[in-house]
């Protein structure tokens, strides 16, 4: 089988195998990471602010 033929059959195979569905998820997985790390949670509950983190660190919690 020539190189081009094998590339085509691989492409056809992958298309038929149905690897397409999670592409939309992947964008979310990779795109969300930096924002998630920096955005503080809103709400009125317990918040791990910098101050709180420092306190927990000092108590080796």
């Amino acid at each position, binding site marked *: 089988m020539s190189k081009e033929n*094998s*590339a085509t*059959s*691989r*492409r056809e*195979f*992958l*298309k*038929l*195998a*149905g*690897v*397409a*569905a*999670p*592409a*939309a*998820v*992947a*964008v*979310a*997985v*990779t*795109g*969300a990471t930096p924002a*998630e790390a920096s955005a503080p949670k809103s709400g009125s509950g317990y918040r791990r602010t910098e101050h709180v983190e420092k306190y927990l660190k000092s108590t080796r919690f």
Partner: protein
Amino acid sequence: MASGEAAAQALVAEEDVLRAGMYDMLAGLLARPPRRDLIERVAGLEGDGSEMGRAVRSLARIARGTSESSVEREFNRLFIGLGRGELVPYASYYMTGFLNEKPLALLRADMARRGIARAANVFEPEDNIASLCEMMAGLILGRFGVPEPLSGQRDFFAQHIGAWAGHFFTDLEGAKESVFYAPVGATGRVFMAIEREGFRLAA
């Protein structure tokens, strides 16, 4: 997604971008308990009548009926546990029966050669399944420089993933504690078989 990566992706064939998407999804679900937004994304997935399509559909169905906290509890029982979780998702463990054995050393040498390093805030060994999926996605899309040619992807897969990941995903699918992670396991198992066949066709 970084704009540099978007530019590099223009050079990567569509089906390979989709493969990377698959690896990214598995990495995102296995690295840590997924947050609600990721679970919701997964819940919206659709699949066709293929084996992969069926696995993805059942994953979406279970994602729709679960919550962030119950997935987190399941994750902890599966991978963290008291002492250890039900499963030990590391190449070294699956290939030798012990953690931090030669497969990890080989992977570290390979990573150094390719200029890949573990993130500074991560302390798990690099040969866990999530990291390996992340590295495959990165190699395919060129996140570590330029997109890796198929032959290099095949070598990386054969050396670090192919021999054991299928077994791990099968174990995950059948694990006692698996509910949400059962179809994650099925999806991974089917995908590993597709990858193996894809690399064989490209040879």
